[in-house]
């Protein structure tokens, strides 16, 4: 039995007789439609595998994609896996700091991107000595700068590629995730992750070969790879991939015209839809839609109630993390949805609510949400940071960093984070990363960043900023700060609120006391401030 994810998603489907079946319908931002069969997906990913092999890329090398949603993203991802290199994916709105952290830490040897995004890479290229190959999907060869034309190298590559036997433990996919301290950590997965991604796609999302499936997640994030590529294509399912952005009417048209049967999206997007004119939804004709799922941050009961009223469907919330690689706890059809609950564990997954000392807590009590180690898609390490990896495991349990409680019927309920990480629109943001970007602004002396509750984003990034004495806050400076964070880190890290203050509370060892900032923001008691350095 093959283990290579690239092969299973393409050649194996062709061998099952699905060569002529549509693997995905690509719908561009301007609504042009192009169908790609599993045969096309196999040939194009083979070409990419041959192309990078000809460059000397091989097993264990790390190769990134840095593209918006587009067909080349999928060909490259699967081709990279076929050569047993590791595919890292990057959100296309990352700025230079975020790119440098990820490409630098991983020692990536190559990247596929496009001209408009390459500018960011070009500005940091001299700090990336390992980065040898840059493939541009819309560019010409430029030997002097090591830039390679995708069109040329693909045209020269054979459509036949023999995937070598792949061990289930061979590293496969790399996503970086944020912690509350330090730089982002590279979460490394292995080809055996399919052992979780495929059954969850089949039994939770309910995917079968007759479905038309649309996952709105960007491939820069784990949902976009686990459930926008691997899970569905390993089952021979036809996907819709849409290159446009959020547009309520367009989305409803797409669901109707493409006869989407299973739709996987995010709470923030669903909450944005909730704010739109209801006639967009009540007038939509969606007889083919069987189920809606969401992932990213807790789904508030109002969204489910709204969906029941205007779309006549439940929304099934799912819970997983970059580190878990696949859905762990979930709601699903056929089981009562308890509004606001994460649902119940998937088959074979053993969560536990533990106290800080590892003692199991009784039902109803809030504690650390942990999962018994050993499921197939469990991450295998944080790249170059084994100590951080080891710190996430105690007594055979993975500590997720989330806190939750379990009710007496076995439903889990998300309560919050046990650290300072901010969950904004389903993306984890490190306050440290934002604070670092803020300190690059000439006028800023100190900064402290927190997450605060937000109706749309679940949490918003709030920055407390202390200026050097010679500067005064004003609107232009506020804009400068916003744009700096957006362009150096990413749009999702941009502070939604900037509060100018006289000082940032720190403890005696100089650590920013975000707890005090949060209490100040929320108008609450900051608790024990005995360690506060005044």
């Amino acid at each position: 039995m093959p283990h290579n994810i690239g092969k299973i998603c393409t050649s194996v489907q062709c061998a099952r007789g699905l060569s002529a079946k549509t693997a995905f319908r690509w719908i561009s931002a301007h609504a042009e439609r192009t169908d790609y069969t599993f045969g096309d997906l196999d040939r194009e990913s083979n070409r990419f595998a041959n192309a990078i092999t000809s460059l000397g890329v091989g097993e264990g090398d790390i190769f990134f994609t840095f593209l918006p949603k587009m067909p080349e993203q999928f060909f490259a991802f699967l081709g990279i896996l076929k050569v047993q290199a590791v595919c890292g994916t990057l959100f296309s709105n990352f700025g230079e700091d975020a790119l440098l952290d990820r490409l630098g830490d991983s020692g990536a040897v190559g990247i596929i991107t496009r001209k408009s995004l390459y500018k960011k890479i070009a500005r940091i290229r001299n700090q990336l000595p390992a980065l040898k190959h840059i493939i541009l999907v819309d560019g010409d060869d430029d030997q002097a700068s090591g830039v390679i034309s995708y069109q040329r190298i693909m045209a020269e590559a054979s459509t036949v590629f023999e995937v070598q036997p792949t061990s289930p433990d061979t590293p496969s996919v790399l996503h970086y995730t944020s912690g509350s301290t330090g730089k982002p950590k590279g979460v490394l997965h292995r080809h055996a992750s399919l052992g979780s991604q495929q059954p969850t796609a089949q039994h939770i999302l309910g995917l079968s070969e007759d479905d038309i499936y649309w996952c709105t997640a960007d491939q820069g994030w784990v949902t976009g790879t686990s459930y926008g590529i691997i899970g569905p294509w390993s089952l021979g399912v036809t996907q819709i991939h849409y290159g446009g952005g959020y547009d309520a009417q367009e989305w409803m048209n797409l669901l109707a015209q493409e006869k989407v049967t299973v739709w996987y999206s995010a709470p923030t997007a669903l909450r944005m839809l909730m704010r739109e004119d209801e006639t967009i939804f009540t007038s939509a004709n969606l007889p083919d839609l069987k189920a809606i799922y969401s992932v990213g941050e807790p789904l508030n009961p109002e969204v489910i109630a709204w969906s029941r009223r205007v779309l006549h469907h439940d929304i099934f919330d799912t819970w997983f993390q970059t580190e878990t690689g696949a859905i762990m706890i979930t709601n699903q059809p056929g089981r009562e949805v308890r509004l606001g609950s994460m649902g119940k564990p998937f088959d074979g997954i053993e969560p536990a609510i533990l106290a800080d000392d590892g003692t199991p807590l009784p039902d109803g009590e809030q504690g650390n949400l942990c999962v018994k180690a050993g499921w197939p898609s469990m991450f295998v390490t944080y790249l170059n940071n084994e100590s951080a990896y080891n710190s996430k495991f105690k007594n055979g349990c993975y500590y997720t960093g989330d806190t939750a409680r379990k009710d007496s019927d076995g439903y889990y309920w998300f309560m919050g984070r046990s650290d300072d990480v901010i969950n904004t629109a389903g993306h984890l943001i490190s306050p440290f990363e934002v604070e670092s970007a803020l300190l690059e602004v000439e006028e800023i002396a100190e900064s402290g960043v927190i997450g605060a509750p937000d109706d749309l984003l679940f949490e918003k990034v709030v920055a407390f900023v202390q200026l050097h004495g010679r500067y005064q806050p004003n609107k232009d400076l506020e804009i400068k700060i916003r744009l700096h964070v957006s362009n150096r880190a990413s749009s999702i890290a941009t502070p939604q609120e900037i509060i100018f203050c006289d000082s940032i509370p720190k403890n005696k060892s100089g650590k920013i006391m975000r707890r005090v900032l949060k209490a100040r923001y929320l108008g609450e008691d900051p608790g024990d401030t005995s360690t506060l350095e005044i």
Partner: protein
Amino acid sequence: MATEETLNQIFQMVFDDDCIQIYPATTANDVDGWDSLSHVNLITTIEAKFSIRFTQKELLKQKNVGDLIADIDRKLAGN
């Protein structure tokens, strides 16, 4: 300086790309990085640079750069 030219400079600044060239028909789908969060940066910057304030209704109706320019020009004319 014409509104479109100033607006083009704002786009270049917000999206950190000196090569951006906007046209009235330009939409979010034509500019890399123009997502809902960077849209907030764009609107905030436009409001500050032109010293205007968009209403929620105007923001919801703006579908492309042409709509933005029309709203900016109308506000600058005092209507």
